[in-house]
């Protein structure tokens, strides 16, 4: 029987992969993709909790729809910025975009 724990485990694994990518990817595009993974891990969690703990109310599931919408907007803006930065600097390496330091 597949229970809550299985969903949570999968979500945790996806989150960990996303976190790993966030911290190690060298390009900004990869980092954005990793963030998407982490967001989706959270979405799985929310859906799982909603399904197994409060099956009668759909708050968790509605919440996830909002999250997806916001994440889509975020990616759209993020990618647009990445394109602008690439046009300007000819690079999307995170380590090189450090003009905001001290």
């Amino acid at each position: 029987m597949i229970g809550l724990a299985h969903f949570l485990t999968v979500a945790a694994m996806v989150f960990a992969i996303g976190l790993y990518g966030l911290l190690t990817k060298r390009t900004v595009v990869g980092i954005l993709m990793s963030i998407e993974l982490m967001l989706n891990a959270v979405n799985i969690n929310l859906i799982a909790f909603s399904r197994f703990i409060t099956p009668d109310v759909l708050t968790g599931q509605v919440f996830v729809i909002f999250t997806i919408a916001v994440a889509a907007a975020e990616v759209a803006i993020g990618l647009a910025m990445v394109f602008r930065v690439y046009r300007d600097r000819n690079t999307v390496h995170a380590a090189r975009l450090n003009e905001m330091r001290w």
Partner: protein
Amino acid sequence: MFSQYALHHAWLIPLLPVIAFIIVGLFLRRIPVLSAAVSVCMSLLSFVLALGVGYGVIDQLITVDNPLIQRMPWLVIPGLTIDMGVYIDPLSAVMLIVVTLVSLMVQIYSIGYMRGDAGFGRFFAYLSLFSATMLGLVIAVNFVQLYVFWELVGLCSYLLIGYYFHKVSAREAAKKAFITTRIGDFGLLIGIVLLQILFGTLDFQHLGVSVPAYVAQQGTGLLTVVALLIFLGPIGKSGQFPLHVWLPDAMEGPTPVSALIHAATMVVAGVYLVARAFFLFSVLPNAMEVIAWIGAFTACFAASIAFTQRDIKRILAYSTISQLGYMMLALGVGSVTASMFHLTTHAFFKALMFLAAGAVLHGLPDKNDIFAMGGLRHKMPVTFAAMTIGVLAISGIPPFAGFFSKDEILLAASQVSMPLYVIAVLTSFMTAFYMTRLLVVVFCGPEKPDNHPHEAPVSMRIPLVVLGILAIIGGYIPYAYHFGDWVRFGPALHMGLNWTIAGTSTVLSVAAMALAWFIYGSGKATSDKLARRFSALYNLSYHKYYIDELYLWLNHTFVDGFGKLLYWIEIYVIEGIVNGLAHLSLQLGDWLRRKQTGNMQRYGYIMFGAALLIVAGLLLLNPLFKGVLCGGGY
């Protein structure tokens, strides 16, 4: 009739000079004639009112036991009410007459003396202010009023000593006078505060009742300390040893100021304070002994300095210190009568001598050294007569004023302590000697060829004549009318001449005058020979026992040294801490700034690490999560 009016309007006596001060100070400073006229008129009115008060005393309307007291609240806060008011008894009546009279004389004299001076109006404004504050001090009903006016007369003294403020020496002398007297005033202030704490009142009348009761109950220990602290004020103000150093330097002021403030009125405020607070001192034998000995020592000490001084005003200044010592001695041996009597006669003859000295300086500008004068009696007969009367009065030659008052003091001292009496007699001998020296050197002998003296103008001669007459009769008349019946503390003192004491002092004074005549009248050679023979003593006296040098050294060593120490602490400790803190935060900020690398993945590491730590912490610390850790879950 008039004395009734004067008594009940006694508050006008200090107020009239205040009006003069305001009018002259605000509107008439640039109009010499009017400023002098207003000041003199107000002084005259004050004097007339004071005479009315004096009549009230003679008519027995007020006596020591039945004074006239008017009070009005001046400062009211919960638990403390401080009055200002008028306290008229024979003691303050005598002071009122002396102060207004000398003030009037000095103002008339100043019309001639200060003629053509650029600050003429300012001078009269200051003189009026001084009269007002001095009179306010005299009629004080409590210690606070007395202290307020006490400081105000100090301020006027400062302003008038520094009247020629373009001269460095005058500025320095003014500061010295103010600071030196402040040292004593600090003790006075502490004493007053202690009195308020002990008795809950500062009113002279109330304290006069509660102090003897307190002493009968609690003893004298603490109260002696209070009395001695209060006595520090008179030590400073009345130029008693060891705070006498400011008075000779105060002669930097114009001569009328020296006559009014530093001879006749302000410097006797200390004597007046002790007399006014005699209910306190008289029940404290130890304090009385201190007062007597300080007075006697000051009298003798200052006289020995006056021996060798060459500046005419400084000789008179040391003589003033010596005579103030006499008055303190009289108070210390318990005779308010003798002290106030001497205060009165001294005000007449010392003001006379200062004004005569002023006339000499007026006739011979820019000369202060008595040995640069000489033979002035031909060109300045009135001044010579005035100075002679003054010298005879201060030397105690009958029937001049000083004879009676000095004899009172000698009599009072002889009844209490033989050593004090001997010191007093010795001082009287020295006084006659140095005063005759002054007279002989300045007025007798050959005229100096390059001096062109001239007699003083009429406005200066009138005060000389008036004060000269008072210096002659000012002793005999109070004596004949039993001064001691009115101005007294406790039982009436019927003054009588003790022929032994009077005879001794008179004979000694005459001998001293003859000796001075012999030494200084016969040319300068004799005195120079003596100075060489006793050069050590001469130098000691000429340099005023090096007291100024000692104070300078003390000041330099201890005050400046302490200042240096504080400066070091300021620079290295306090500034070190402040600057160190600033430097530390600067360094810390610089270090922390470098952590903002701009590398977003490092931020990610830090954020995630911190989140992990927080979660771990919550899990470990929060009992709610402990259940989760230990099992359960889904």
